[in-house]
């Protein structure tokens, strides 16, 4: 079945360390892909999105993601995390590549330790 998978339910990193959160997609075409973040006691917000062009996309707060067709991946990265980055991160995909039916991955809970 076509989908997105976030293989890591929880990730803990030290403040100042680099971060990679993984997202794998299963789709035969080139998908649109998004990362959303859910901060504690706040609503969900868009971090970044990819739908064509440069495979590295920049988002808010120093986050970036790299699309790889060969690896079927859209991993999220940050060079140096801050304690305020602690949140749940979701990889999101419009089902069947272009529909309005947006499907969320299971999410990765990031804890930044000081």
């Amino acid at each position, binding site marked *: 079945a076509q989908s997105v998978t976030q293989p890591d339910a929880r990730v803990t990193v030290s403040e100042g360390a680099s971060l990679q959160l993984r997202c794998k997609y299963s789709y035969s075409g080139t998908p649109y892909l998004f990362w959303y973040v859910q901060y504690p006691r706040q609503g969900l917000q868009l971090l970044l999105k990819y739908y064509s062009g440069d495979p590295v996309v920049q988002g808010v707060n120093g986050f970036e993601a790299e699309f790889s067709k060969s690896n079927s991946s859209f991993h999220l990265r940050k060079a140096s995390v801050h304690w305020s980055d602690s949140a749940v991160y979701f990889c999101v995909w419009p089902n069947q590549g272009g529909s*309005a039916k947006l499907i969320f991955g299971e999410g990765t809970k990031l804890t930044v330790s000081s």
Partner: protein
Amino acid sequence: GGIITQTPKFLIGQEGQKLTLKCQQNFNHDTMYWYRQDSGKGLRLIYYSITENDLQKGDLSEGYDASREKKSSFSLTVTSAQKNEMAVFLCASSTGSCQNTLYFGAGTRLSVL
């Protein structure tokens, strides 16, 4: 800017009860969504609507009804609340293209006694 307002913020129901959740947006967006989030889990799509009076089923539509009578509002009905059910229901809207940003409401937290 705009805002998505979900009411009520908290909803406590009894087993078997029919419960209605409401969502209003002033973005003038075409597409609206209802997602369910269980504790520690991802979001599962219940229903979405790409225009007024349109309804599209998500992966979790069984046990729910939805209604989009106006462009600005999208309501969700739990047809028969399940005992001990606890979840957060999130409403979102977008301009409609799959490329566009989803804007979320703060959620309705449901508890069933």
